[in-house]
Protein backbone atom coordinates (compact mmCIF):
# COMPACT_ATOMS: atom_id res chain seq x y z
CA UNK A 1 0.00 0.00 0.00
CA UNK A 2 1.00 3.59 -0.38
CA UNK A 3 1.78 5.54 2.80
CA UNK A 4 -0.81 7.75 4.46
CA UNK A 5 0.82 11.13 3.88
CA UNK A 6 -1.73 13.17 5.80
CA UNK A 7 -1.35 10.97 8.86
CA UNK A 8 2.44 10.93 8.63
CA UNK A 9 2.81 14.68 8.14
CA UNK A 10 0.27 15.53 10.84
CA UNK A 11 1.90 13.24 13.37
CA UNK A 12 5.36 14.55 12.51
CA UNK A 13 4.32 18.19 12.88
CA UNK A 14 2.53 17.55 16.19
CA UNK A 15 5.69 15.98 17.59
CA UNK A 16 8.07 18.59 16.21
CA UNK A 17 9.27 20.77 19.11
CA UNK A 18 9.22 24.05 17.17
CA UNK A 19 5.67 23.37 15.96
CA UNK A 20 4.32 22.17 19.27
CA UNK A 21 5.72 25.34 20.85
CA UNK A 22 3.30 27.33 18.67
CA UNK A 23 0.28 25.80 20.44
CA UNK A 24 -1.41 25.36 17.09
CA UNK A 25 -3.52 22.38 16.12
CA UNK A 26 -2.73 20.01 13.26
CA UNK A 27 -6.05 18.80 11.85
CA UNK A 28 -7.66 17.19 8.82
CA UNK A 29 -10.65 19.52 8.63
CA UNK A 30 -11.62 22.93 9.97
CA UNK A 31 -12.30 22.60 13.70
CA UNK A 32 -15.62 23.92 15.05
CA UNK A 33 -13.77 26.06 17.58
CA UNK A 34 -11.70 28.56 15.65
CA UNK A 35 -10.51 31.02 18.26
CA UNK A 36 -7.10 29.31 18.45
CA UNK A 37 -4.81 28.75 15.43
CA UNK A 38 -4.73 25.54 13.43
CA UNK A 39 -3.12 23.89 10.40
CA UNK A 40 -5.32 21.88 8.02
CA UNK A 41 -3.49 19.16 6.10
CA UNK A 42 -4.99 17.99 2.80
CA UNK A 43 -3.67 15.56 0.20
CA UNK A 44 -4.21 16.96 -3.27
CA UNK A 45 -2.63 14.21 -5.33
CA UNK A 46 -0.58 11.04 -4.98
CA UNK A 47 0.84 9.83 -8.28
CA UNK A 48 3.70 7.36 -8.46
CA UNK A 49 7.00 9.20 -8.63
CA UNK A 50 8.71 9.23 -12.00
CA UNK A 51 10.98 6.22 -12.57
CA UNK A 52 9.44 4.41 -9.62
CA UNK A 53 8.03 0.95 -9.98
CA UNK A 54 4.27 1.13 -9.77
CA UNK A 55 2.99 2.51 -6.48
CA UNK A 56 6.20 2.20 -4.50
CA UNK A 57 7.71 5.68 -4.43
CA UNK A 58 4.84 8.16 -4.27
CA UNK A 59 4.98 11.86 -5.05
CA UNK A 60 2.40 13.34 -2.70
CA UNK A 61 1.09 16.82 -3.32
CA UNK A 62 0.01 18.20 0.04
CA UNK A 63 -1.64 21.48 0.98
CA UNK A 64 -1.22 22.95 4.44
CA UNK A 65 -3.60 25.77 5.33
CA UNK A 66 -1.90 27.59 8.19
CA UNK A 67 -4.51 29.68 10.03
CA UNK A 68 -4.04 32.37 12.63
CA UNK A 69 -6.28 32.43 15.66
CA UNK A 70 -9.04 34.98 16.12
CA UNK A 71 -6.67 37.67 17.34
CA UNK A 72 -3.30 36.61 15.90
CA UNK A 73 -3.71 38.22 12.50
CA UNK A 74 -1.10 38.35 9.78
CA UNK A 75 1.91 38.16 12.15
CA UNK A 76 0.72 34.87 13.67
CA UNK A 77 -0.15 33.29 10.32
CA UNK A 78 3.25 34.20 8.89
CA UNK A 79 5.22 33.05 11.93
CA UNK A 80 3.39 29.73 12.04
CA UNK A 81 3.76 29.18 8.30
CA UNK A 82 7.50 29.87 8.39
CA UNK A 83 7.88 27.47 11.30
CA UNK A 84 5.87 24.77 9.53
CA UNK A 85 7.92 25.25 6.38
CA UNK A 86 11.19 24.86 8.29
CA UNK A 87 9.86 21.72 9.98
CA UNK A 88 8.83 20.23 6.64
CA UNK A 89 12.31 20.68 5.26
CA UNK A 90 13.68 18.67 8.18
CA UNK A 91 11.19 15.86 7.62
CA UNK A 92 13.02 13.37 5.34
CA UNK A 93 13.67 10.18 7.30
CA UNK A 94 11.79 7.24 8.74
CA UNK A 95 8.44 8.01 10.39
CA UNK A 96 6.79 4.86 11.76
CA UNK A 97 5.44 3.08 8.67
CA UNK A 98 6.61 5.70 6.17
CA UNK A 99 9.97 6.66 4.71
CA UNK A 100 10.08 10.26 3.49
CA UNK A 101 12.85 10.77 0.99
CA UNK A 102 12.31 14.38 -0.04
CA UNK A 103 10.16 17.40 0.83
CA UNK A 104 10.04 20.46 -1.35
CA UNK A 105 7.80 23.47 -0.86
CA UNK A 106 6.42 24.38 -4.27
CA UNK A 107 3.72 26.89 -3.33
CA UNK A 108 3.35 29.69 -0.80
CA UNK A 109 0.31 31.96 -0.82
CA UNK A 110 -0.95 34.36 1.84
CA UNK A 111 -4.70 34.19 1.33
CA UNK A 112 -7.03 35.30 4.14
CA UNK A 113 -10.07 32.99 4.30
CA UNK A 114 -13.32 34.89 3.56
CA UNK A 115 -15.46 32.10 5.05
CA UNK A 116 -14.68 33.86 8.31
CA UNK A 117 -15.78 37.32 9.41
CA UNK A 118 -13.49 39.15 9.44
CA UNK A 119 -11.49 37.15 6.90
CA UNK A 120 -9.11 34.94 8.84
CA UNK A 121 -5.41 35.31 8.11
CA UNK A 122 -3.97 32.21 6.49
CA UNK A 123 -0.92 31.06 4.57
CA UNK A 124 -1.38 28.19 2.12
CA UNK A 125 1.72 26.02 1.75
CA UNK A 126 1.85 23.49 -1.06
CA UNK A 127 4.51 20.82 -0.67
CA UNK A 128 5.77 17.91 -2.71
CA UNK A 129 6.48 14.99 -0.39
CA UNK A 130 8.22 11.94 -1.86
CA UNK A 131 7.64 8.88 0.30
CA UNK A 132 7.26 5.12 0.33
CA UNK A 133 6.07 2.54 2.78
CA UNK A 134 8.72 1.43 5.26
CA UNK A 135 9.93 -2.17 4.81
CA UNK A 136 8.23 -4.58 7.19
Amino acid at each position, binding site marked *: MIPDAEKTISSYLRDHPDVSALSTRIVG*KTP*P*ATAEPWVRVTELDAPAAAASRADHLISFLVQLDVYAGATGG*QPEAKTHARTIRAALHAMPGVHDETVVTQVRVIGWLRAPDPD*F*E*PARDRVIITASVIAHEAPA
Partner: protein
Amino acid sequence: MLASTLLHRACTVTTRTDSGSTDDYGNPTDAETSLTTVCDLQQQQRTEPGAQGELSDTRWLLILPPGTEITTRSTVTVDDIVYEVIGDPWTAHLHGRPTHVEATLRRTGA
Protein backbone atom coordinates in the same frame (compact mmCIF):
# COMPACT_ATOMS: atom_id res chain seq x y z
CA MET B 1 -39.79 55.56 21.69
CA LEU B 2 -39.17 51.95 20.65
CA ALA B 3 -35.76 51.79 22.28
CA SER B 4 -36.83 52.99 25.66
CA THR B 5 -39.62 50.42 25.97
CA LEU B 6 -38.47 47.26 24.17
CA LEU B 7 -34.69 47.05 24.32
CA HIS B 8 -33.48 45.32 27.46
CA ARG B 9 -30.39 43.27 26.59
CA ALA B 10 -27.10 44.76 27.63
CA CYS B 11 -24.56 45.04 24.84
CA THR B 12 -21.28 46.75 24.05
CA VAL B 13 -20.60 48.38 20.70
CA THR B 14 -16.88 48.59 19.94
CA THR B 15 -15.98 50.76 17.00
CA ARG B 16 -12.62 50.64 15.27
CA THR B 17 -11.01 53.72 13.80
CA ASP B 18 -7.55 54.27 12.31
CA SER B 19 -5.03 54.89 15.05
CA GLY B 20 -2.73 56.71 12.65
CA SER B 21 0.06 54.15 12.97
CA THR B 22 0.86 50.95 11.11
CA ASP B 23 2.08 47.50 12.07
CA ASP B 24 5.24 45.76 10.81
CA TYR B 25 3.44 44.80 7.58
CA GLY B 26 2.27 48.33 6.80
CA ASN B 27 -1.34 47.67 7.81
CA PRO B 28 -3.12 50.51 9.63
CA THR B 29 -3.64 49.61 13.26
CA ASP B 30 -7.00 50.15 14.91
CA ALA B 31 -7.98 52.34 17.80
CA GLU B 32 -11.11 51.15 19.60
CA THR B 33 -13.86 53.00 21.42
CA SER B 34 -16.55 51.16 23.35
CA LEU B 35 -20.11 52.10 24.18
CA THR B 36 -22.35 50.16 26.56
CA THR B 37 -26.04 50.31 25.71
CA VAL B 38 -29.16 48.15 25.38
CA CYS B 39 -30.27 46.19 22.34
CA ASP B 40 -32.33 43.37 20.94
CA LEU B 41 -30.72 40.54 18.99
CA GLN B 42 -32.54 38.12 16.70
CA GLN B 43 -31.04 35.32 14.63
CA GLN B 44 -31.86 35.52 10.93
CA GLN B 45 -29.75 32.84 9.25
CA ARG B 46 -27.56 29.91 10.24
CA THR B 47 -25.42 27.79 7.98
CA GLU B 48 -22.12 25.94 7.57
CA PRO B 49 -19.85 26.81 4.63
CA GLY B 50 -19.01 23.93 2.31
CA ALA B 51 -15.65 22.22 2.84
CA GLN B 52 -15.21 23.81 6.25
CA GLY B 53 -16.41 20.94 8.44
CA GLU B 54 -18.73 22.03 11.24
CA LEU B 55 -17.83 25.70 11.04
CA SER B 56 -20.80 27.77 12.21
CA ASP B 57 -21.82 30.84 10.21
CA THR B 58 -24.76 32.86 11.58
CA ARG B 59 -26.35 36.21 10.75
CA TRP B 60 -28.28 38.36 13.18
CA LEU B 61 -30.49 41.45 13.31
CA LEU B 62 -29.38 43.93 15.95
CA ILE B 63 -31.68 46.72 17.11
CA LEU B 64 -30.22 49.65 19.03
CA PRO B 65 -31.58 52.91 20.43
CA PRO B 66 -31.72 55.77 17.91
CA GLY B 67 -28.54 57.77 17.69
CA THR B 68 -26.24 54.90 18.71
CA GLU B 69 -22.83 55.31 17.07
CA ILE B 70 -22.09 52.13 15.09
CA THR B 71 -20.41 51.52 11.73
CA THR B 72 -19.43 48.63 9.50
CA ARG B 73 -16.10 48.56 11.37
CA SER B 74 -17.81 47.91 14.70
CA THR B 75 -18.18 44.75 16.71
CA VAL B 76 -20.99 44.08 19.15
CA THR B 77 -20.63 41.99 22.30
CA VAL B 78 -23.74 40.40 23.79
CA ASP B 79 -23.49 37.86 26.62
CA ASP B 80 -19.70 37.71 26.12
CA ILE B 81 -20.12 36.69 22.46
CA VAL B 82 -18.58 38.97 19.84
CA TYR B 83 -20.36 39.66 16.54
CA GLU B 84 -19.06 41.56 13.51
CA VAL B 85 -21.16 44.29 11.90
CA ILE B 86 -21.80 43.67 8.20
CA GLY B 87 -22.35 46.86 6.20
CA ASP B 88 -23.24 50.26 7.57
CA PRO B 89 -26.26 50.17 9.91
CA TRP B 90 -29.52 51.95 9.12
CA THR B 91 -31.59 54.36 11.19
CA ALA B 92 -35.32 53.62 10.96
CA HIS B 93 -37.79 56.50 11.10
CA LEU B 94 -41.47 56.80 11.97
CA HIS B 95 -43.32 60.00 11.06
CA GLY B 96 -39.98 61.63 10.40
CA ARG B 97 -38.50 60.76 13.78
CA PRO B 98 -35.75 58.17 14.30
CA THR B 99 -37.05 55.18 16.23
CA HIS B 100 -34.12 52.78 16.28
CA VAL B 101 -30.94 51.65 14.53
CA GLU B 102 -30.80 48.31 12.70
CA ALA B 103 -27.55 46.49 12.00
CA THR B 104 -26.71 43.15 10.42
CA LEU B 105 -24.27 41.05 12.41
CA ARG B 106 -22.32 37.96 11.48
CA ARG B 107 -20.54 35.46 13.67
CA THR B 108 -18.35 32.65 12.33
CA GLY B 109 -16.83 29.85 14.36
CA ALA B 110 -17.62 28.90 17.93
